């Protein structure tokens, strides 16, 4: 899926709030409002939804907070007013309707990892070489295309982000 997002670079926001040198990770939290979001009435996942990035990932110029798509403001169901987009983790980390951003020392909990730790790790990089335990992640179908295409390492952004993970075993840190 290729979506024309509009947003604000996350790095800009982070620079503005000047986290201290103790900050190593960024933790995000979604609004918990079951009256408005009926899915939250059932404990399919642990609410509120939480997500996290390493500070250097969050500071990468590709990471941004989306406020709109297709030239319009974000709709509620797409995660208004602010939604995280991390292009090389596409399909993951897209936490919606963010109400809290915290700078923390140690790796914050993430909802899918809590829900199924064997299936979802903290990093969630797009990686065709590491299968999800239940299905392949080798190829994908773009919305609007009939044929599947090969999924690219880091969703095609390897040149921009691979250096963030040098020395990290991506099979163990999925």
């Amino acid at each position, binding site marked *: 899926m290729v979506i024309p997002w509009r947003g604000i670079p996350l790095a800009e926001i982070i620079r503005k709030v000047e986290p201290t040198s103790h900050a190593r990770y960024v933790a995000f939290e979604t609004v918990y409002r079951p009256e408005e979001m009926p899915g939250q009435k059932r404990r*399919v996942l642990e609410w509120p939804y939480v997500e996290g990035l390493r500070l250097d990932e969050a500071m990468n110029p590709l990471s941004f907070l989306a406020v709109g798509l297709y030239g319009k403001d974000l709709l509620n169901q797409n995660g208004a007013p602010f939604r995280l987009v991390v292009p090389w983790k596409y399909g993951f980390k897209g936490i919606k309707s963010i109400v809290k951003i915290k700078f923390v020392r140690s790796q914050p909990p993430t909802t899918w990892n809590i829900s*199924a730790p064997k299936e979802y790790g903290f990093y969630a990089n797009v990686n065709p070489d590491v299968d999800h335990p*239940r299905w*392949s992640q080798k190829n994908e*179908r773009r*919305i609007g295309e009939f044929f*599947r295409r090969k999924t690219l390492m880091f969703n095609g952004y390897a040149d921009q982000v691979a250096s963030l993970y040098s020395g990290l075993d991506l099979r163990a840190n999925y």
Partner: protein
Amino acid sequence: MKQVRWEKRVLRPLVFLAALSPFFDLVWRAVDQSLSANPIKEITEVTGIWTLRFLVITLAVTPLRDLTGWSQIGTFRRMLGLFAFFYGFLHFTTYVALDQYFALEDIFSDVVKRPFITVGFASFLLMIPLALTSPNRVARRIGGRRWKALHRTVYAVALGGVFHYLWLVKADTSRPLLYGAILMSLLLFRIWSYFRSGRNIAGQVSNGGVNEGVAKESLDAKLD
């Protein structure tokens, strides 16, 4: 007699059309281009869930007949079972032709490596002999008792369908568990009615074994 005619002439065509309506709905939405942003996924999901639904509906026929005493409902069972196969066939074909576009290597590794696909594929394969042996002519040739034993695999097919569904959901298992619960209660009903009237059933089975040249009309009743 009059009631039989009503069921045959009116109810049967209505059930037939109703059973086709999910298919017509898909065709209509394909023409209308309203099959969601991801049409292939939508077709896969719709044909998949209707396969499971028709398996459950088919398995509910006999308990329903026993509970209500409405004997004619039994004659719908084969048609409903064939609709389960129809949707299962569409589901399988969608996966092979549309989703994977005949990438046989990928399909093979899916079947071997992904438990939810393994069990779904196996369930589909098990449905084929059931569909092939559904005509009266073939059923008579096989013989009541063997036919009946063969068609008991429908329980395995339905159970496979439930696990296929359960193992593919990401977090919300409530739907597959609901189908599992319905299937379990249908199974329990049969076990219960088997023990309740154990002698009757034993009598019927031995009868069916001896009397294989059953008349066409009574075959459906015979092959419970």
